[in-house]
């Protein structure tokens, strides 16, 4: 990248980088992976196929969104695994079993997610727990609750859900629409006053307080929202598999965390965003899709995924360092 030496630049008043490098890089990487995947399996170049791929990605996307929220306020949420499982099993057991109004019951599941997130919030913002410990505890506890609801895979998911998930809106697969909705919701949140407060708290709690930010309340709300997102993730998996699983949540903890970091959200809070994590999460899905499409030796494909991960992040690090170099 050539740094134009306009007189302004010489005068130490640098123009801010017009492009946000974080977003640029993440998008670029995603795009590349899409191209690779498409060229590897042409059959994928078809809206319904893509819809299916996105559908399998949905749970991760939502958990990643949840994780991002927690990380933005300088926290971390391991309990997404538990919340996910509880929501997933609730959907498969008593929403499915119940005769009556499934939409309403699904709403109840969301509320449960919100509540579980709020508990994290109280522990962290109220009782001053370290986020890692607080959510480690609740993760295990929620996981147990999920096992109580459903001892092992099974249950029946309401048709409403599966049909919605497999349906289309104006020809576009529902799964894609859902992603769009998620991103829209994030945009609304980000551009709200509350959105700014989230970043302020993550940026520097003390200064945020000096500016009259209700730090505790912000934290609490953020974790509640994280719970909500994780719950949606659980519901999505239930929809995609038309069954419940009490252990389905745990693998998403690490995946969501790496999605967040790959997306460029700093674990020290205040920088990044859900949009980035969603893109990164989808990149992860694509990586494993590519790995399995190339149909290599097991160990080769494991290695390949690991290397792809590294390549992505290194590329990002390099580009961003360049970009940084331009700001004083």
């Amino acid at each position, binding site marked *: 990248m050539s740094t134009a030496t306009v007189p302004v630049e010489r005068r130490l008043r640098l123009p801010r980088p017009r492009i946000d490098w974080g977003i640029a890089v993440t998008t670029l990487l995603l795009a590349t992976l899409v191209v690779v995947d498409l060229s590897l399996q042409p059959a994928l170049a078809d809206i319904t196929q893509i819809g299916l791929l996105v559908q399998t990605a949905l749970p991760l996307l939502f958990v990643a969104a949840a994780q991002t929220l927690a990380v933005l306020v300088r926290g971390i949420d391991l309990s997404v695994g538990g919340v996910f499982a509880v929501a997933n099993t609730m959907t498969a057991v008593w929403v499915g079993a119940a005769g009556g109004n499934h939409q309403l019951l699904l709403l109840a599941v969301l509320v449960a997610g919100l509540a579980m997130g709020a508990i994290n919030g109280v522990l962290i913002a109220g009782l001053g727990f370290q986020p890692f410990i607080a959510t*480690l505890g609740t993760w295990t506890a929620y996981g147990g609750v999920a096992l109580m609801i459903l001892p092992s895979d099974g249950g029946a998911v309401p048709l409403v859900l599966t049909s919605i998930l497999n349906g289309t809106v104006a020809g576009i697969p529902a799964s894609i629409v859902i992603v769009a909705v998620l991103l829209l919701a994030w945009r609304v949140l980000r551009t709200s006053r509350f959105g700014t407060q989230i970043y302020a708290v993550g940026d520097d709690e003390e200064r945020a307080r000096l500016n009259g930010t209700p730090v505790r309340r912000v934290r609490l709300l953020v974790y509640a929202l994280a719970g909500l997102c994780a719950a949606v993730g659980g519901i999505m998996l239930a929809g995609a598999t038309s069954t419940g699983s009490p252990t389905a949540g745990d693998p998403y903890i690490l995946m969501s965390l790496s999605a967040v970091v790959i997306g460029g959200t700093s674990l020290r809070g205040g920088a990044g965003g859900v949009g980035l994590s969603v893109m990164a999460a989808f990149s992860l899905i694509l990586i494993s899709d590519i790995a399995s499409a190339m149909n290599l030796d097991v160990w080769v494909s494991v290695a390949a995924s*690991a290397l792809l991960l590294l390549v992505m992040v290194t590329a990002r690090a390099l580009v961003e360092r360049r970009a940084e170099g331009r700001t004083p």
Partner: protein
Amino acid sequence: MTRLRAPRIHLSTVSAFALCAVLFVIATLHASGFASGDNVRQLLVFASFVGFAALGQTLVVLSGGMDLSVPWLMAFGGIQLSHWATGGMPGGAAIALVVLVGALIGVVNGVGVAFLRIPPIIMTLAVGGLVQAYLLSLGLLDSSGKSPVPAAAVSAASDRLGPLPIVAWVWLVVAVAVGLLLSRSAAGRRIYAVGANEEVARLSGIDVARVRLAAYALSGAAAAFAGVILAGYVGNTYLDIGQPYLFASIAAVVVGGASILGGHGTYWGTVAGALTLTVLSAMLPLFHLSDAGLKVVYGVVILLGVWLSQSGGELLARVRRRATISPEPPHSPEVTTSAP
């Protein structure tokens, strides 16, 4: 020179041990067998696995990182060992070599984090993946009829020396050493400084990259060694042998009172954390709970315990009438793109 050490670190370590003790007493009251020598020795052995896995983790976390490759390095420690040993290499040599290679793998982590500026979580995750790939390429299943684990590892993990199992002694020695390293050595100071604020550390003339490298290298070695003794104890190896220790290793560090964002904590705290987690998961089955109930209780007890022990620590602090302010770790360059 206690006044040179930030008081709250000290306290959190103490209260972590207190928590462990309380749990142990409760368990003993419920089932007297719990305090039996056999059981205590068992617990020490189990705890030492966590303790070693969490050793490097502690250093890495203190320096502001995280090592997710620990479980795979443990698997490496076990499987590679059995590979070399069944291949005819003398046990002792094989163990030394495995630990050495573990350290080298750790260095790879360090290089990625320190020089390529790859976020620790991703770097260590990826390296873990590569190690996993390598182990898969070995074919996993050893075909020799011989015992897959050399006698040295087995006896280290299962034999006794005086009242305690050998591993426990090893662990004790290592803990003392690491404790000294952190609290008394220049290297320790550098680790804390880097974890507290990388930029300040750099401007203070600390070679941040080298500190990081060292931390990850030690982590690799410790994890590999944890794998060795675990394999020795189990008398067998398999790919997932390290999996239970991924979160356990980090949890031990944090329950021990360290900040996950780096800068403060102690290895003795981690030791307490490891013991606490082990005692807890060993005592809960005594209460004849369902698996589900057991998980719930486990989670709740961790929260309750940590909360009580920490507020206990705060109380002590107030008794000492120390001016306490929340030691909010300052911004790292990671987020502050202020000049240059």
